[in-house]
């Protein structure tokens, strides 16, 4: 990969009055990289995008793009283009004028404008719509015009604010594919804000999980899933949320930690023991797929079933251990388990994560997901 950094955030801070919304956010993007800002609403992910676009000022830190400091520049001079969540098309302008507006303001030659608009329209299949007004277009077409308006500017960086949230399910899948294609065609970096982890996971090279005014973790999607940096990321990424339960570290000779759950059952993890002893209370992290439902007495421990969710290909079983600890397990699609049953849970210790008292994640030496 080329090592030229495309976007760099250095200790970016932003506050509205006394309320800090971004607290020392640092990030470095590779050229041509597709990055997703993933986080719940109110996490500051949209604010961060708007800071990069120049729609919000920074209260501290630097934003650099292609080596140039841009946080003091007006939005139009930053070399970024944005696709707004609600498209923000100019309602009284034709599709053609919507796309050409920015280029005219930038003083691009007329012929060049026409060529770029036509190229973009052709690629996005909105050529027949060029002379229509936004109100005459369907939601999907408007979305494509909004993308077209960004493409014609040939920016160094595309900023996409929840680009798929206003589309119905079928259109969302198609647009997701289109975005992936677009990304392959243009020589630019992408940042997409989303609260939908499936979008983030499928489109992005790396995901920045944002929560509580900070970036909690940045990494490739599978790494975030397999090696979450802390309890919050572990529970936010993946569905259903990862089981997290308090455990007690057992004494032992082995390099890997063995722990005991609240109901007394033992789990042998592959997480290195080093540094865990004496640190304080630990928590275990178990994805539902590593808690398999078996017959009563046949697993690591027994539990009472409280709720069964049948998803077709698999069944999620929400159960409670004898000490009251809730644990979500998985069974095959044709499961006959019912609420109120006593079942066995076979916990795959090799896939278990441990969380230190400060919440930071410790992961098995050999990742079971590959």
């Amino acid at each position: 990969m080329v090592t030229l950094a495309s976007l760099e955030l250095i200790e970016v801070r932003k506050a509205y009055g006394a309320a800090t919304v971004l607290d020392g956010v640092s990030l470095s993007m590779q050229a041509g990289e597709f990055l997703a800002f993933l986080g719940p609403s109110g996490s500051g992910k949209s604010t961060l995008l708007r800071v990069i676009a120049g729609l919000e000022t920074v209260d501290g830190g630097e934003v650099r793009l292609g080596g140039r400091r841009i946080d003091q520049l007006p939005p139009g001079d930053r070399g970024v283009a944005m696709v707004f969540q609600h498209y923000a098309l100019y309602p009284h302008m034709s599709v053609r004028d919507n796309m050409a507006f920015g280029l005219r303001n930038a003083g691009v030659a007329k012929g060049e404008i026409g060529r770029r608009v036509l190229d973009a329209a052709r690629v996005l299949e909105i050529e027949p719509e060029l002379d229509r007004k936004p109100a005459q277009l369907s939601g999907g077409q408007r979305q494509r015009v909004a993308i077209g308006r960004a493409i014609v500017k040939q920016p160094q960086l595309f900023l996409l604010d929840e680009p798929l949230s206003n589309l119905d399910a079928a259109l969302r899948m198609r647009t997701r594919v289109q975005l992936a294609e677009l990304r392959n065609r243009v020589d630019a970096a992408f940042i997409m804000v989303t609260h939908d982890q499936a979008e983030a996971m499928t489109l992005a090279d790396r995901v920045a999980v944002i929560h509580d005014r900070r970036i909690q973790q940045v990494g490739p999607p599978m790494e975030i899933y397999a090696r979450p940096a802390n309890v919050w990321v572990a529970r936010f990424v993946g569905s259903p949320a990862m089981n997290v339960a308090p455990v007690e570290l057992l004494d032992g000779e082995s390099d890997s930690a063995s722990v005991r759950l609240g109901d007394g059952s033992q789990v042998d993890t592959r997480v290195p023991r080093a540094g865990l002893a004496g640190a304080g209370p630990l928590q275990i992290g178990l994805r539902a797929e590593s808690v398999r439902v078996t017959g009563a007495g046949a697993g690591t421990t027994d539990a009472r079933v409280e709720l069964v969710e049948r998803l077709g290909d698999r069944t999620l079983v929400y159960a409670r251990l004898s000490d009251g600890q809730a644990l979500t397990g998985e069974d095959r699609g044709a499961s006959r388990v019912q609420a109120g049953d006593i079942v066995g849970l076979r916990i795959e210790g090799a896939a278990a994560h441990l969380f230190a008292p400060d919440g930071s994640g410790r992961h098995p030496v050999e990742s079971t997901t590959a």
Partner: protein
Amino acid sequence: MNAQGRRNLLQAAPFIGPFLLLYVGLLIYPLLDGLTLSFHRADPFGGRAFAGLENYARLASDPVFGQALGNTFKYAVVVVPVLTAITLALALALNKPGRTASVFRGLFFSSAVLSVTIITLIWRFVLTPDAGLLAEVWEAAGREPVPFLSHPDLALLAVAVATIWWSIGLPMMLFLAGLQQIPEDIFEAAALDRANRWTTFRRITLPSLRRTAVLVVMLQTAAQLQLFGQAQLLTAGGPGGASRPVVLFIYETAFTRWELGYASALAQVLFVLILAVTLLQFRAGTSRREP
């Protein structure tokens, strides 16, 4: 279906009835009565004789009516564009959050709640040549005070200025409402599209306010063509009819010369004129939509 419809109507009658009665009694009937009256010679003491089109023939060649009609259009031509421009500018300046802007919005709107009597009193204090506000200023500058209210070229303008001052509130509020309807994100998109302030105003704000502007112009034209109180109280239409609008002429005809038939004919003509102008504006304001 038919019986059902009749039952619905019966049930609706008590609700619509009272309003309908008032509407017919106070609006439709006088309108029609005025129309018939315009074909009669009539006075308020019961005298009424059919006169055919006589009243209409008379007004067509009445120089006083001609002058009043000319004045009325002058009022509209002066007041409407200036008022629209001023209220748009005010709305743009005051369309921001914060206490200062809201205080000023209130101040500029406050003139709209005053009655025409108060308005003319205030402007009398300003314009009157003996000890008026402007007269003092003129005299302090060592110049002869200007008799705004009795100068043939200035009386109409004086009334127009008072009218503008009085009418600022509503159009400003309409423009403010229009501005707040424009979604914030298209201004952000424009900022990313390198639009400067002027381009943003001309290409984004102004086109978005088009419907509001058409509404303001239509409402104000219809209102100014009916200008009456300010002219009567400030200048009494003088000097020599130089500031007399049509409605004042109608009023004088009906209630000082007691010619009700002729006054009705004048009123019918004004009604048709206002209707025609408003419709024309509506057509012009909406026809340049998408093809």
